[in-house]
Every structure is written in C-alpha cells, then in structure tokens.
C-alpha cells in the first residue's frame, strides 16, 4: 500500500491538520508520501519532511499553486495518483475543495471526512450533521479520502527526515485565477488548533459584547468562536463559526457562553474534552452535553471569570 497525503499549509508553515491526517495514513498502513503544492513553499516542505512517518516529500513550487486553486492542485495530484493506492487530505476548506476533483477524474467514489479507520477499506464517517455515524466500505481500487482532523491525534512534528523531491511538472488548468482574499489576522491560536476555545452565541446580544469573550480568551490564551446564530445576526465574521456548517473543533476545554446548543452547533464541538456552558436558561440543551454548567447571566459571569483567571 502506498499513500499520498496532500498537505495543508500556507507556504510558510505546515498546518497541524496535516499531522492528524498522517495518523490516519498510519492507521491505513503503507509507505506515506506528502505532497506540498504551493509557491515559495520550501519552509512548509521542510516541516513536512520532519514529521513522523513520512517517507518522502514531493514539492511542487510554482505560482500556479500559490492560492491552492482546486483546478490546478487537483490536476497535479491526479497525475501523481498513478503511483498511489490511497490519496488523503485533511477535511479543511482546501481538502474539501480539491479532493473531489481528483476522485472524479480517477473514477473513484470519494469518502468524505472519516473519523476512524476500521481497516484499509472500511471507515466511519458522520452523516446527518453527526446525528448518525455510518460505517462504509469502498471497493474502489484507488481510494480518495478526507480526514476530520479532530478525530485523529497528531503525529510528532519533528524527528523525521524524509527525502525531499522537487517536481518539475506544472499543471495550470487555465480556467481559474486568484483575485483577492480577506483573511482574519489575529495573535490568537487558530480556532481548529487551539487547546481552549471560548465561544459566544445569540445571548451575546451584539458584536460589541464579544469584548467580554475576548477578555476571557486573552487570559486563557484561547481561540474565539461563535454559534451560527451569532454569525448570522452579524455579531462576528463567519470564520469564527463553530458547527456542522462551520468549523469542527475538539479542544481540551470549550466554553460556550450564551449558546443554547442547537444540533448544528453541538455537531461542531461535542468532541471537546471538557465542555463548560454558561447560560441563563437552565433548560438550554447545551447543559445536556456540558461537564460543568453555570446558570447565570453572562454579563455578570464573564467579568467575574476574567477576574479569577
């Protein structure tokens, strides 16, 4: 069995989700290579070569891959696929965007967002927003799979010394181009990688009140999240959304403030190790999943919490 993992990276560094995907690769079993497609991505490739369990890193360094355009990266990976039995990527925005294109051209039914490897051809994945877990088996000779990073531990980021090979081919499909991006800039840990996440919901009442969340998050060196209700109400931007249609997180500590606990939100955070809920409605469904529930007015509880941390 040979496995190609498509790295999630921002050229300057490898994203943690790649390390979780390598654990899924190890569970499937086989010689594992990592593809780093980007522009000026040598630093990311170097990190990939140091990750545990990687036998070889393929580096495609070209402007065509600078912004992870699906058309170009998928065309490259499809060319490389001939040498591999399994193609994996984390189920990040890029992974979800790119992998189905590869699978379609390879005439393989892709398997999305696996949460466990039962055997080399059998996997578990959530369906119906995580309300049902399906065990699925693929009879395709080549398998194309995205991996839910929070369901797998990360491999060690250092200690490996994989061979790094530069690829010469450039696959520019010529049908898409990058125009612009607006990325949130923050000193905080990334939402999906943070050990602690503090999230606010509709109970925050407005965007300004998220300052109360921010103050607690500062004390805990935590990432900030939000429920879909808070995002849809315009309190905070969409990249903060935790939930089935937002980001899936599983930190050591998740503090849900003013969040009722809709299924859509629970699907995004219920695998957190410890969940704290602060809500003034003692019947809020969030308390059914919380390890520690505090029935309180968040406008009093948050400043008190900040003061005691």
């Amino acid at each position: 069995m040979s496995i190609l993992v498509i790295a999630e990276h921002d050229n300057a560094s490898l994203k943690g989700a790649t390390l979780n995907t390598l654990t899924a690769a190890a569970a499937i079993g086989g010689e594992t290579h990592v593809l780093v497609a980007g522009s000026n991505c040598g630093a990311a490739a170097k990190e990939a070569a140091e990750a545990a369990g990687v036998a070889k890193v393929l580096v495609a360094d070209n402007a065509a891959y600078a912004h992870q355009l699906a058309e170009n990266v998928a065309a490259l990976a499809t060319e490389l696929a001939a040498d591999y039995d399994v193609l994996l990527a984390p189920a990040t925005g890029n992974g979800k965007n790119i992998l189905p294109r590869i699978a379609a051209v390879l005439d393989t039914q892709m398997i999305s967002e696996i949460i466990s490897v039962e055997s080399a051809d059998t996997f578990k994945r959530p369906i119906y927003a995580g309300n049902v877990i399906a065990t699925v088996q693929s009879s395709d000779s080549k398998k194309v799979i995205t991996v839910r990073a929070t369901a797998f531990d990360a491999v060690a980021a250092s200690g490996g010394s994989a061979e790094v090979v530069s690829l010469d081919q450039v696959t520019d499909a010529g049908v898409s181009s990058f125009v612009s991006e607006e990325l949130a800039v923050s000193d905080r840990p990334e939402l999906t990688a943070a050990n602690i996440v503090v999230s606010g919901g509709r109970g925050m009442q407005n965007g300004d009140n998220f300052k109360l969340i921010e103050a607690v998050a500062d004390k805990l060196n935590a990432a900030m999240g939000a429920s879909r209700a808070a995002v849809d109400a315009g309190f905070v931007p969409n990249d903060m959304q935790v939930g089935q249609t937002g980001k899936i997180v599983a930190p050591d500590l998740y503090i849900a403030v003013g969040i009722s606990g809709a299924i859509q939100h629970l699907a995004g955070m219920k695998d957190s190790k410890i969940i704290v809920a602060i809500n003034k409605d003692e019947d809020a469904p969030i308390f059914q999943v919380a390890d520690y529930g505090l029935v309180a007015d968040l406008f009093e509880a948050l400043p008190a919490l900040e003061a005691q941390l």
Partner: protein
Amino acid sequence: MKVLVAIKRVVDYNVKVRPKADGSAVELNNVKMSLNPFCEIAVEEAVRLKEAGTATEIIAVSIGPKVVQEQLRTALALGADRAIMIETDSEAQPLGVAKLLKGVVDKESPDLIVMGKQSIDGDNNQTGQMLAALAGIGQGTFASNVEISDGKVNVTREVDGGLQTVALTLPAVVTTDLRLNEPRYASLPNIMKAKKKPLDILTPDDLGVNLNATVSTLKVEPPAEREAGIKVESVEELVEKLKNEAKVI
C-alpha cells in the same frame, strides 16, 4: 445566459433522524422530506441572476424516484423556467450524480451551474467539484458572493481563514454556502403556475451513465452519547473545578 440548478430532495432539516433498530439504514418511513437548504440558496441565486437580467433561462434538475418531482415543482414555483428529472430508484452516490449532471450539461450547454455545497443527509460535499472536474471547468465552492461580467464569474468563497475571491472562466460551477442569500418563499399563484411549466423525464440510460455504487454502508449507529455533567453554583466553583478536577487550566 443559461443557468442550470441541480437540487436534491432530503430529510427536512427539522427532523431528528435515527438509525433503524437493525442498524442497516436511517429510518426514512413517514419522515418529512424537503428541498435541501443549500439547494434552496442555489435556486434563489439563479432567480436573482434572472431578475437582474443576467440569466435568461433557469433549468432545474434533480435525480431520484418519481417523488423528486415535488422538489422540482418547488424550484419551478420559486422561478425556474423548466425542469429535468432523471428518474432512478437506485441510490445515486456523488460520483454517479456528477456523471448524470455532466450528461445534462452536455445536452443543455449552460453557462453557469449552481448547486448546494452539500446535502444535509450524506454531508459529502463532493458533487459540484466532481461535476466541474468531469466537465473540465472551474469551480467556485462555498460561495458567499457571485458576480458575473464579461464571460467570467467572480466568486467570493468562505475559506478557513476568512474569504477568498477567485475569477472563473464561464462555464463554471458555483456551490452555495449559507450566507450567499436568503431564499424566498414560493407564492400561491407561483405554485399554481409551476404546475404548468415543462418537466422532462430522462433515465440514467438515456445519458449513458451506470450508477454502480462502489461505496457500501455496512452499518449506521447513533453517535456516542455524551453524559451530562454537573451544575456549578458560582464562577468561583467553576474555576476551582477546571483547575483541580478537570485540570484543563
């Protein structure tokens, strides 16, 4: 400009689904079915393009047993001009759906294909990307804004760190995210009118597509239950528990 909108009939999003007792499949008997929410957004976007004078014709397409006509009539009531049903009782997986849609794209030559980013039953998030790959065209997935000009479409996409805008040569596939628009409701007169709009029926054979499924579901089960914990009385007690009991801060 011709717009093709691909839609799916799914379990209504308000229904709490559960596996059958024998774990063979999800219980779908006597469950309310609806148009997939992301597909509603796709239909709405197409209708807005027509209202803006950009689109001239909207074709809605869906795949499944006879009953998917209900969702196609909904799309017609919302503003689609005509509908195509690809009738099959076989389970169509995303790759099979993409192949069928590719067949429709070859027949109809739309300038833009709009569809939901995923269906809320299978949560695969594959079909739009697969269709774009099979058709050899560009894709703007997880769209929160769509602008068309000069044979191109600029799609603003919801990506992990924020927003990214890409320019795609038409024809192209756009898959919708939640914040693209707020879908309207169909009015009663439009529901009546929709009954008279044309609805063609094709089969997978007509399009030369074999729906052989290569991924089989061995079992479905409820997720592991998370046990409710305790209520604390005060912020002091909460901090004490987090420090000494859970040891997470």
